[in-house]
C-alpha cells in the first residue's frame, strides 16, 4: 500500500487533488481511499488530505501517519516545523516551489520540484496549482501514468477549464525537476 499526504491551504484544491489522484489510480485498476482532515471549511487555513492506494481493498479508516509520498501545494507550508513528520525512509516529496533544493528531512530521498503557481497562472489564469502538481506527481513517482491523470480530470472538470488544466498538468509532468539524495 502507498500512502500519500497532501498539504495545502483551504481553497487551493488539496482535497480535490487527493480525490483526483484516487480516481487516476482507479483507472489503472487500483483500490483507493481518500479523505481530508479539516474542521470548518475556511479559505487559507492549512488543510491535509490523504490518499491510499493498494492492489487489494483498503479498509483502514485512519489518518496517514507515515506517508510514502507528500505533496505540498503551497510553498509557504515548507516553513511548518512538523511538515515532514512521519515521512517514511525513502520518502518522496512533490512541491510547488521555484527554488526548493535541500534535503529538508533525513528520510527524504526524491523531490519533484515544479513552479506550479507560475504554470497555473499561465495556463489556467489563476493560482490553482493542484493539477500541475498531479502531473509532476506522475513524472516523479512513476506510480501512475500521465494518461490516467489526464483522463480522470474530466470527471471533475469540463469545457475550457478542463483543457486549461490538462495543459497545466502536462507542463507539470514535463517541467518538474527531480532531485535525488542518498
Amino acid at each position, binding site marked *: 500500500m502507498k500512502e500519500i499526504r497532501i498539504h495545502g491551504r483551504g481553497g487551493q484544491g488539496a482535497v480535490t487533488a487527493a480525490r483526483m489522484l*484516487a480516481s487516476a489510480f482507479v483507472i489503472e485498476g487500483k483500490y483507493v481511499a481518500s*479523505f481530508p482532515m479539516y474542521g470548518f471549511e475556511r479559505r487559507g487555513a492549512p488543510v491535509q488530505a490523504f490518499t491510499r492506494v493498494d492492489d487489494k481493498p483498503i479498509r483502514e479508516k*485512519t489518518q496517514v501517519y507515515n506517508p510514502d509520498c507528500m505533496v505540498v501545494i503551497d510553498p509557504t507550508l515548507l516553513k511548518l516545523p512538523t511538515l515532514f513528520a512521519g515521512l517514511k525512509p525513502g520518502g518522496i516529496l512533490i512541491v510547488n516551489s521555484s527554488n526548493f533544493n535541500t534535503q529538508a528531512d533525513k528520510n527524504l530521498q526524491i523531490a519533484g520540484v515544479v513552479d506550479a503557481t507560475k504554470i497555473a497562472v499561465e495556463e489556467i489564469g489563476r493560482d490553482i496549482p493542484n493539477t500541475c502538481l498531479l502531473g509532476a506527481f506522475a513524472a516523479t513517482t512513476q506510480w501512475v501514468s500521465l494518461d490516467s491523470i489526464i483522463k480522470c480530470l474530466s470527471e471533475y472538470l469540463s469545457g475550457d477549464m478542463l483543457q486549461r488544466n490538462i495543459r497545466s498538468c502536462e507542463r507539470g509532468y514535463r517541467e518538474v525537476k527531480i532531485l535525488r539524495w542518498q
Partner: protein
Amino acid sequence: MVKQMRKHETRVITGNACAAYAVRLCRPDVVALYPITPQSEVVEQLTRFKADGLLDAEMIEVEGENSAMNAVTAACVAGGRVFTATASYGLAFMYDAMMQTAGFRAPVVMVNVNREIPGIHAVSAGQQDLISVRDIGWLQIIVEDDQEIIDAIIQAYRLAEDYEIQLPVMINYDGYYLSFSAEAVKIPMIEDVDEYLSILKKQPQRLKLEPGKSMGAGSHGLLQTYTELRYKHMAAMERAKAKFDAIDKEYGDFFGRYYGGQIEEYRTDDAEIILVTSGSATGTAKTVVDAVRENGQKVGLVKIRMYRPFPRERLTKVLQGRKAIGVLDRSVGFGWNCGPMYQEIRALTPEIGKVPLMSFIDGLANMDITIPNIERMIRDIQAAAEGKPYQETTWVSLEE
C-alpha cells in the same frame, strides 16, 4: 443459484455523495433538507441532481431540521416515499418530530452523519448523537464504508416500507471518516433498483391520509390502545431483525454484495477472543485482526450493523463460548461508567456466560482510532482471556 452480474457505474465519490446517489436511485417523492457539517454535501448533491433533472422529487429547503423531519413524516403519512439527512445538533433539533415519526409508524428513511453533540462544542466525528436517540423507536443501522452507505440506503427503503415493519430507518455513518472519504464505489443502475424495490408494490397498502375520507392520523392513544400500539411497535421492531437478515440475503443475491444482516461476523469461527465494533473503525480493526491472526492468535471481530432493534439473539450466538470480549464505543454511557454498546452486550451475560468483558472508549471528537490503539485493545482482551487482571473500562486515548 446462479448470481446475475448486475451492471454498475464505478465512481470515486465521498460518503456524502454516496448517500445522495443512493437516494436518487430510490426515487423519493419528497425530500426535505437543511445543511449541517458534515452532512451538507448530501444536500448540495441532491439539489444538484434536482437542478440537472436527475431527481424528480419535491425538494423542501426547510428553515431547520425540525421542519425537515415534520415535513417528511407528514409527506410519508400522506403516502409518499421520503428522505432527509442530518447530523448531531440537527438530530437533536428534530427530536420531538422523530418521536412522532416513530409513533406514526411512518417509513421515513434518514441519514445521520455521526458527529459529536452540543455542550462540549466539537465539529468532529463521534457516535453520541445516535446513542442519544436509541430508544426513540427508530430502526438504526450503522455502516462501515462508502459502498455500504449506498447499499444500506437502498436496503433501508426495502425494510422501512415492508408491510410487516412500517418503521422509520436511520442510516448512520461516521462524519469526516466516511462523509468526506472518497472511495471507488459501485453505483447500481436505477432500473435495477426499481426492480429490486418493486416487491414493495406487491404488498398491501399501508394506511395513508385521503382527502374526503374521515381518517385522522395521530389520534390520542388512551390506556389499552396506547399500550397495544406500543406493543405492536415493539413487535415490529422484533420482526425487523430477521427481516433485515433476509433482506441482506435477498439484496446480496440481487446485487452481489452481502453484509451479514444485523451483524457481520469476521473471522469468528475459531476465535477465542472477540472485538465488537461498529462504523468506520471496523475497517481498521479488521486489518489489525488479520495481522494478529498471522501470529497465530485466535481473534475475531463482530460488527454491529443494526443497533436498533438490538441484535440480541445473533450476538448471543456469536459471543457464546469465547474467552474474553471487548467492545469499542465511540460514545459514552453515563451512570454505567462504560460505553453504551458495551453496556448492552454486558446485559447478555446470562446468555453468553461470565467471561471477561471490556469496554474501550475511543474515537471521540475525531480522535483517530489508530492501528496501535486497536492492537492495544486486542492485547488487553488477550491478557484478560489468559486470566490476567484487567480493567473494565479503558479510555484508550487517555491512558498513559
